[in-house]
């Protein structure tokens, strides 16, 4: 027998002796009845006492929750049974009847019954609905210590100090108390006859079996939840297991081990285990099938009195002399490891499975670990090694063991692994491709082992290390109770140390840059070099964590999933109704394992943390996206933004004008501030707005605020300082109107209006001042008038000497006309984006086809392209009839590359050439000569100069340079496209610019050149495409066709562009040139371009024809445009021209273009080749030429000889 050093205790309370315990079936509550007459209601998850119920007199021994109602029942030494409501927190009623201590009370699982056992030797059944005693069972001849209902059948089991266990049949009682109609006369007769009445004539409950075997009194008895088994424990220190059938019951076996009275026992609700407690201060766990001890736990001082099991969760509670402990028998955290898109985990059945995150599929069991450790202990950790596809599993059994197991390539059911390496150790993790570390706590030693399980080196960790975790490649994180150390295995030294206490788990981010250290109540985020980034505290226990791809940590507590950003900002993502263990976060999905080790996907709303993250990273695009697509509102986010110094962003969320105003002032957004101030119109706001506007130099708003506030003085001064004379004058008038002389004086002073001042002084009878003012400014006439009016003469006055009157300064710059210029950058990107100024950045490919001389050819390319492309190219391919003759002359395609097998080995480059008939492969192998030979045979290539860049490009990409021995040149390796191939007869080189790249990059580049009328560039692009395709390889037959289509398309475009370019290069004078120009523009419409592009060509041709009065041709182009359809604006124009041309459908200049005849355009001479007339083609690009050009160089591809004998291009080896 072994004992575990500590139980997984979840909760402990301190109180007087606990005699009765009951779990709430749904909530995390436990009822504890105490010897001190109190009943306590605890929340064991939070560790808080919810309530106390104190009405019993003396010890309370039995207590039970009702399954569904908010009720519980208790029974005590006051002989009373009390039924309580925990909602109204009071005793509802008391059932009296027992004549001695009540030992146990239980509710029936469905009927409104309570079962009680008492020292008065009776067992009683009560109906708590009508509060009556319905049955009294007598038979025991000593105290009955315990009585319980069967979980399903109409049975009761009881234990008594008379050394017996009795099973009672209460089906009679049920019948009696069910609806009377259901009982027929026959039933009644049958019942009367079948049931033997006991001595009192009582047929409601009869003894079915009496189980004798205990040598002392029996303290406790319980039914098995599903099997016909009974377990009992007594003062003879034995736990006895009994089995019963319909007709009899017998003793199965005895579990010996308790060395004092066994006080209670029960069956594990889900596993084949028996749990018992005793006065020997132990909790013992027994194997139900072998009746051997599995585990035991001893308390130092407290005798155990009672044990209870949670009906659903893996939780137990035991009451002892000093309170209650709630514990788990086993860790429920499933061992798991995540690698890329896969989760590896161990199920409850100890099978290793994998789960694919991308497909959301669970694999069948990969391997079974049934033999690992002992059957009652689940594995603790799992570490995965992708290089070897191996796992390391640890189990706490036998003081810690580990096993190294190779996973099979594919899952084929729970196989026993064949090759297992095992050893002793508390923790084992992979630290490198072929190394793992094993930590043994007892010896405080870390062994680094290789895959053969032999030690390569040993490390002495810091004292009292408790656990080790992966610490980044080649490093370990050593966990002690007070700190975490980062240890470099190779250098054997500690790199860093961080004081974090009680770390239990370490979770690395996907990119390996950050790790989260989880302890019971703290999350500490550190960098890979163990520098603390942030830390946070949770009052509720933290269970697990996983990193989002964007670098947000999501962690789960007992009841929430929360997030934290690297900067420590955190919040709640969602609530949980049961504990889960997070393993991966991907977009909106959180992947986790539940307590039964089943993968689950929880959906979360990542908006809040994504938003905050975007804010921290200043990723405004994403923020904008979030704001636009989700409902991100609420005060919290606003105050968050404001607090973090982003008022301008917060502004976007706020509707409330007051808040908007505050935010607007804070971020200096005056427009919004004015708008909201107007709404609110409060003097205080205007003042603040004025002050803010002034600091911005926005005097127009300042003016407005002063007007609102009627600050005339300030207004005047503002006008003065901005040089707004006109308004200043108006202010003067207002002042006059108001009769405010001070103001008037000031204004006239500002304006330099002496007259006004003099007059004002006169009005106020301040003649001396008026006189002085007039005198000082040389207004002699005024002076005289004043003197006259006051009756003085000038001689009577003694005047000081006066200087010259001050000239009024004239404003140099009319500042008042506009505000102080403010840098435009005050608008954040974010605001602009919100205002829709940024949105138009993309989609700006609207064609500017001005070269075609028609104003607005806003063809809706995007939509047209998709639809038309497929159709058109099918046509193209059919036109050339090139699909079939690929396989002719395969043999001659292989060029013999001689190689000597002896001596130096042949280089891979040579092998490539030998393996392939594709020119590109020869090029990659550096065998240019043979490549040219191939191309010459396949497509009649004769002018290789244009292919030189392509050749060198391929060649350059064929080799890598691996720095090797010092002083010697690097090792050259050859890059293959057959990555998985090791057979030298099949390896082939990589060819840059594959079909996909050409189609997605180069082709689009060509198209956009066409749209934007950059035909020079376009022509180059299409020729480049042709050259790239000429020397290339593809990976499937389908791609060959695709490539050929692409060649044909490119050839069409190249021809078309070349024609148009030729037209543009024609001199404008001369009738011949005009004619040629018209012809070429007509031919430009012939090549098979994409529809939108053809519309451009038609439009150009139509306009040119129309302006030159070739109405007939113009009409035909217009008709073709209309037939093509597409976007409406060019069509309108076509319609207009059509109607005009139809009036006189004649051509002024006769051109060689028959709109009704079928013809191709010769790509050499740009003249029509009518169908039926002889022609020749380019063997590579398929362009047609007049037969006289046979043997010439093709103008389209510039490589091949027109009409040369050729076997056809090869791009693929089947």
């Amino acid at each position: 027998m072994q004992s575990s050093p500590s139980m997984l205790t979840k909760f402990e309370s301190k109180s007087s002796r606990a005699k009765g315990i009951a779990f709430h079936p749904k909530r995390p509550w436990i009822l504890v009845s105490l010897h001190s007459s109190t009943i306590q209601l605890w929340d064991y998850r939070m560790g808080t006492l919810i309530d106390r119920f104190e009405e019993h007199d003396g010890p309370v021994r039995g207590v039970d929750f009702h399954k569904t109602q908010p009720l519980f029942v208790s029974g005590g030494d006051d002989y009373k049974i009390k039924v309580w409501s925990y909602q109204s927190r009071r005793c509802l009623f008391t059932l009296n009847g027992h004549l001695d201590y009540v030992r146990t009370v239980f509710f029936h699982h469905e009927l409104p019954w309570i079962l009680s056992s008492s020292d008065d030797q009776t067992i009683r059944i009560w109906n708590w609905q009508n509060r009556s005693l319905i049955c009294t069972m007598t038979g025991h001849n000593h105290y009955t210590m315990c009585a319980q209902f069967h979980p399903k059948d109409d049975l009761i089991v009881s234990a008594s100090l008379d050394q017996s266990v009795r099973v009672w049949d209460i089906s009679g009682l049920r019948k009696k108390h069910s609806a009377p109609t259901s009982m027929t006369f026959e039933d009644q007769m049958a019942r009367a006859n079948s049931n033997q009445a006991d001595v009192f004539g009582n047929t409601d409950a009869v003894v079915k079996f009496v189980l004798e075997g205990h040598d002392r009194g029996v303290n406790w008895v319980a039914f098995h939840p599903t099997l016909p088994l009974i377990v009992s424990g007594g003062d003879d220190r034995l736990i006895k297991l009994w089995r019963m059938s319909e007709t009899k019951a017998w003793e199965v076996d005895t579990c010996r081990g308790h060395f004092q009275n066994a006080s209670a026992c029960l069956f594990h609700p889900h596993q084949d285990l028996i749990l018992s407690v005793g006065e020997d201060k132990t909790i013992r766990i027994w194997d139900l099938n072998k009746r051997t001890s599995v585990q035991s736990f001893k308390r130092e001082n407290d005798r155990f009195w009672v044990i209870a099991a949670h009906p659903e969760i893996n939780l137990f509670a035991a009451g002892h002399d000093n309170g209650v402990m709630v514990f788990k028998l086993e860790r429920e955290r499933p061992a798991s490891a995540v690698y890329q898109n896969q989760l590896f985990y161990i199920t409850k059945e100890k099978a290793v499975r994998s789960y694919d995150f991308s497909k959301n599929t669970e694999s069948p069991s990969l391997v079974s670990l049934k033999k690992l450790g002992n059957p009652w202990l689940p594995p603790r950790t799992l570490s995965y090694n992708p290089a070897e596809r191996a796992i390391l599993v640890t189990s706490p059994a036998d003081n810690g063991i580990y096993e190294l197991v190779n996973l099979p390539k594919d899952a084929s059911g729970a196989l026993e692994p064949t090759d297992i390496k095992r050893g002793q150790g508390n923790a084992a993790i992979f630290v490198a491709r072929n190394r793992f570390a094993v930590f043994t706590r007892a010896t405080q030693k870390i062994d680094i082992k290789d895959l053969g399980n032999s030690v390569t080196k040993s490390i002495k960790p810091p004292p009292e290390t408790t656990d080790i975790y992966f610490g980044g490649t080649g490093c370990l994180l050593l966990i002690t109770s007070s700190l975490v150390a980062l240890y470099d295995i190779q250098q054997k030294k500690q790199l860093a140390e961080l004081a974090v206490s009680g770390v239990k788990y370490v979770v690395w981010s996907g990119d390996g840059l950050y790790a989260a250290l989880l302890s019971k109540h703290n999350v500490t985020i550190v960098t890979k070099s163990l520098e603390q980034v942030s830390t946070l505290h949770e009052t509720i226990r933290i269970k697990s964590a996983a990193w989002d791809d964007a670098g947000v940590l999501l962690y789960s507590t007992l009841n929430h999933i929360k997030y934290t950003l690297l900067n420590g900002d955190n919040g709640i993502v969602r609530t949980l109704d049961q504990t889960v263990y997070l393993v991966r976060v991907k977009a909106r999905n959180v992947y986790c394992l539940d307590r039964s080790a089943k993968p689950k996907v929880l959906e979360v709303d990542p908006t809040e943390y994504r938003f905050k993250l975007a804010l921290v990273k200043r990723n405004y695009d994403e923020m904008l996206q979030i704001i636009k697509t989700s409902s991100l509102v609420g005060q919290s986010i606003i105050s968050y933004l404001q607090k973090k110094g982003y008022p301008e962003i917060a502004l976007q969320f706020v509707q409330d004008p007051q808040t908007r105003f505050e935010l607007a002032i804070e971020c200096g957004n005056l427009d919004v501030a004015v708008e909201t101030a107007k709404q609110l119109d409060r003097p205080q706001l205007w003042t603040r707005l004025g002050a803010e506007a002034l600091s911005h130099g926005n005097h127009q708003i300042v003016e407005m605020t002063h007007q609102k506030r009627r600050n005339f003085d300030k207004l005047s001064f503002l006008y003065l300082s901005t040089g707004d004379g006109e308004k200043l004058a108006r202010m003067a008038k207002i002042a006059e109107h108001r009769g405010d002389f001070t103001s008037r004086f000031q204004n006239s002073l500002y304006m330099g209006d002496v007259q006004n001042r003099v007059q004002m002084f006169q009005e106020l009878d301040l003649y001396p001042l008026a006189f002085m003012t007039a005198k000082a400014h040389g207004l002699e006439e005024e002076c005289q008038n004043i003197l006259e009016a006051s009756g003085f003469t000038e001689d009577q006055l003694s005047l000081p000497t006066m200087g010259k009157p001050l000239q009024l300064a004239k404003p140099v710059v009319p500042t008042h006309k506009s505000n102080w210029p403010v840098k435009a950058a005050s608008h954040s990107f974010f605001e602009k984006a919100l205002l829709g100024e940024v949105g138009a950045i993309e989609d700006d490919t609207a064609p500017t086809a001005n070269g075609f001389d028609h104003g607005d050819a806003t063809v809706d390319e995007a939509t047209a392209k998709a639809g038309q492309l497929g159709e058109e190219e099918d046509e193209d391919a059919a036109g050339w009839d090139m699909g079939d003759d690929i396989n002719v002359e395969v043999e001659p395609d292989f060029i013999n590359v001689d190689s000597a097998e002896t001596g130096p080995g042949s280089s891979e480059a040579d092998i490539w050439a030998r393996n392939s008939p594709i020119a590109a492969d020869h090029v990659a192998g550096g065998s240019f000569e043979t490549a040219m030979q191939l191309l010459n045979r396949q497509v009649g290539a004769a002018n290789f100069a244009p292919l030189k860049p392509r050749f060198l490009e391929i060649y350059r990409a064929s080799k890598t340079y691996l720095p090797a021995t010092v002083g010697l040149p690097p090792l050259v390796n050859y890059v293959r496209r057959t990555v998985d191939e090791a057979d030298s007869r099949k390896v082939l080189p990589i060819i840059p610019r594959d079909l996909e790249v050409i189609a997605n990059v180069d082709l689009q580049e060509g198209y956009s050149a066409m749209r934007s009328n950059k035909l020079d560039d376009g022509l180059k692009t299409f020729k480049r495409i042709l050259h790239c395709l000429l020397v290339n390889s593809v990976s499937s037959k389908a791609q060959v066709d695709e490539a050929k289509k692409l060649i044909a398309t490119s050839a069409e475009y190249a021809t078309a562009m070349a024609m148009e370019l030729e037209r543009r290069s024609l001199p404008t004078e001369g009738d011949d040139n005009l004619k040629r120009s018209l012809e070429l523009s007509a031919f430009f419409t012939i090549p098979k371009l994409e529809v939108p592009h053809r519309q451009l060509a038609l439009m150009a041709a139509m306009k040119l024809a129309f302006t030159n009065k070739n109405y007939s041709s113009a009409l035909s182009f217009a008709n073709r445009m209309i037939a093509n359809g597409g976007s409406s604006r060019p069509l309108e124009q076509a319609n207009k021209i059509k109607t005009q041309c139809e009036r006189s459908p004649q051509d002024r200049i006769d051109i060689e273009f028959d709109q009704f005849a079928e013809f191709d355009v010769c790509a050499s001479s740009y003249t029509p080749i009518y169908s039926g007339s002889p022609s020749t083609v380019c063997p590579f690009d398929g362009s047609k030429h007049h037969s006289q050009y046979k043997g010439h160089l093709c103008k389209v591809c510039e490589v091949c000889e027109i009409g040369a004998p050729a076997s056809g291009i090869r791009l693929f080896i089947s």
Partner: protein
Amino acid sequence: MDPFSAEGELLNIHNSFHQGQYQEVIDFDTSKLSPDNTLPAQVLKWRAQIANGQAKTVIDKLAKGNNSPDATAVKAFAFYAQGQSAVAQEEADKLVATSSENPTVQLMAGTILHATGRSDEALTLLSKHQGNLEAYEQISYSLLHSVINRTDLALKEVTAARKWAQDNLLVNIAESWVGLRVGGDKYQQAFYVFEEMAQTPSTSAAKSLIGQAVAEIHLGRLSEAEAALQQAMEKEPENVEAIANSIVLNVLSGKDVSELTSSLQSISPEHALLTDVQEKSVQFDQAATKYSVKVAS
């Protein structure tokens, strides 16, 4: 005991050297080593200095006095590294004649012989070694090198070495070299070796990062390769191989390489990539002249 074994004193300096952390080798504290190991450590230090481009310093230091075969061998190599290959060859020949049993001589002289195109002689010399892992490594190199190019034999050597030196760093490196030549699954294995060296903070060096990138190029994981090469360039902006492989990578992903090419041109105009392409360009022109269209326009 093998001084390079896991518990040996020289393990760290030795590994650092082969991981390309030359500065660490030079800074290594040799004062506490046992007398037996002082010389090998010193040899490694000299070699690291040469690898770091301080060949001149080494020659100056070794010019006077020290006439042990080890020192002479290193000196010869230093001459070679300085470009005085004639002197180096002369010295090497002398050494081979006198003390071909000395491991340092084997290595240094082997390298010189190899570099001057006498690979066969180099192989003969190296094959005289007695359980020297570095010699194994170098033999593998020689076998893989384009002049000899016998992947099969290299594979044999590595397997042999692995038998008695389980999981030594050198064996791992040599195995990755062979792996990159063989391909298939071996690419991934080689990648793991380089990645392990490159991503461990204490052993990370440009050399191993380039190794990682090369493996990734071969695996077709171009974006990862790019990241690794960038890291390498951050460590050593002028690393020739980093630039060369970047060129290869950029060609593969269809990006412009002119800037990289010109920087390679300025740093190492003699680099195989440049000379090779140059040579091929000439070849192309020659080959192209054989063809012409029938009717010249």
